[in-house]
């Protein structure tokens, strides 16, 4: 197990290194001159100021040197300064990260609250009307674009029924209830596709587990069905579901870009969209890097958790 964990962590570091290379290259390709962006339009003709800024940003050096310096600074937590706000990029990112984390966590909770009961119901009574309804829900959930679902939910619950706020973020510190209300619609739009995937995975793995001999034995002992499913079958059926949940976390972070834009949530996704609009490349670089790091960490944790749950890997 220790060897597996160490190998997995070493691979994580290697992938992270390539991730930094990709992030740096993408920002390098962004159109526009960063030095000009920093000095502003008013000083565009000031050659000395321009050259000083290029030197200060290290743009006069060879690209591999620029990358090495950027990586060195990034490792120390310095991701440069935002062109738009002039604040250190890391500060801006850390200020926005809790919002995105809050949104994705809520989306995951909402998704699981829908997926687990429907998945179990579908698996316990396959090909029943409930199962068919569950399948339709899952197929629709996968196909519906999160941004469109968001728009429709705003119309239904904010414009028409007027029961939920259409946009804006209320942090947890300002009260649990108002914060929850402000997050319900964004979480539902972001979590629907996730919920559908978990539903399908849970259904198929639970159906498989329910056909195993130990489930037959539990039934033969005369255990009530709820206990057979809840205590015996579900535990093993959840192992592949954990993998799906872990691997889909990245999808949630990606979806956050549009969902945050629609619901005017001041998170990382909205920051990414704004940074592109304002050509704020240090900020964009930071958002992309932090989100990729979050996905990598989620995948690493999933693998380790999976290894812990599955003895064949633990002792392999």
């Amino acid at each position, binding site marked *: 197990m220790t060897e597996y964990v160490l190998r997995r962590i070493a691979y994580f570091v*290697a*992938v992270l290194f*390539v*991730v930094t*290379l*990709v*992030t740096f290259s*993408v*920002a390098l*390709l*962004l*159109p526009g001159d960063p030095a000009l962006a920093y000095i502003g339009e008013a000083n565009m003709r000031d050659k000395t100021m321009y050259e000083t800024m290029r030197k200060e940003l290290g743009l006069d050096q060879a690209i591999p040197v620029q990358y090495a310096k950027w990586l060195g600074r990034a490792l120390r937590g310095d991701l440069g300064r935002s062109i738009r706000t002039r604040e250190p990029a890391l500060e801006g990112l850390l200020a926005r990260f809790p919002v995105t984390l809050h949104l994705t966590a809520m989306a995951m909770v909402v998704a699981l609250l829908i997926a687990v009961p429907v998945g179990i119901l579908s698996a316990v009574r396959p*090909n029943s009307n409930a199962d068919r309804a569950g*399948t339709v829900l899952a*197929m*629709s959930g*996968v*196909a*519906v*674009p999160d*941004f*469109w679902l968001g*728009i*429709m939910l*705003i*119309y239904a619950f904010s*414009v028409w029924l007027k029961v939920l706020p259409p946009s804006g973020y209320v942090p947890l510190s300002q009260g649990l209830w108002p914060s929850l209300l402000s997050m319900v619609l964004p979480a539902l739009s972001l979590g629907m596709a996730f919920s559908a995937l978990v539903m399908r995975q849970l259904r198929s793995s639970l159906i498989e587990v329910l056909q195993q001999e130990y489930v037959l034995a539990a039934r033969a002992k005369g255990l009530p069905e709820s206990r057979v499913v809840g205590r015996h079958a579900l535990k093993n059926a959840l192992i592949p579901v954990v993998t799906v949940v872990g691997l889909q976390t*990245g*999808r*949630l*972070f*990606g*979806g956050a*870009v*549009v969902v945050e*834009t*629609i619901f005017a949530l001041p998170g990382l*996704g909205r920051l*990414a*969209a704004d940074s*592109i*609009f304002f050509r704020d490349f240090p900020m*964009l670089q930071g*958002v*992309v890097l932090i*989100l*990729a790091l979050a*996905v*990598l960490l989620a*995948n690493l944790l999933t693998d380790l958790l999976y290894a812990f749950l599955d003895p064949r890997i633990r002792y392999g």
Partner: protein
Amino acid sequence: MDSLGRIAVHPRPTTTAAGRRDLTRSRRLSAFLTRTLRTRGAGFGLVVVAVVLLLALGADLIAPYSPYERQQTGVLAAPSPVHWLGTDQLARDVLSRIIYGTRTSVQAGVVSVGFALIAGVFMGLLAGYYRGWVDEVLMLLADALWSFPTLVLALAIAASLGPGLTNAMLAIGIVFTPVFTRLVRGQTLSVRERDFVMAARAIGARPGRVMLRHIWPNVTAPIIVQASLLVASAIVVEAALSFLGLGIEPPAPSWGSMLKGGYQYMQQALWLSVAPGVAIFVTVLAFNLLGDGLRQALDPRLWRQGES
């Protein structure tokens, strides 16, 4: 059963060898189609995909109006017999823009997945065939690309290249490449150990020939399935990029940009938000259902499940 897992149907004797081949091929195709359509919803998927392709190809003939022309009914006119889906904020016919938007979506889906497929298959074949450091480097690159949230990387690449449909398609293609790389690598690793590959190598076939003539035909089945599912994802990513202003540039019609323009008028003209959303939803659903049907038809292990 052949390499794609399809059942070989014995043909009736015919006079010529060519005739026999044609008959076998058509029967195999019909057996394959029957098997695909046996999956719940696959028939619906096939019909909708066919309609979408027809709309994309024949938009000029099918659309009632030009997608750019201002209509006399004025801006934000409600759906009526003259304009079935109403008009938008610039008085253009929404139905015509949806029909022309099909072209953008299909193009985005097919071209970006085509790019990902070519790049991914190339990388996957190399990684699986040569193994060793080639495999390690290529898989590291694939894993790194795959660790970016899809939309975030597509957004960053599209921003670097600048707005426009071609750049959006390239960005989506790059983002989806690792899916095919991983898939083809896995298949190649198992196929390269089979006797016919060993035999080809033993008689001195070059690596390129072994990969293209012997390995490639044996890894196509899962790729077809994955491609149809990814076309659906690519359509959604293109719509999201257009929604964020990084896809096709206005006034060209695209479902994503129509949603972007329409949702600000939600209170006065809900149809502007409903029509493009339904178009994306139905198309994506159809490609997913068709993909599921193909998966059932191409994987013999799933045949019994598909029939239940």
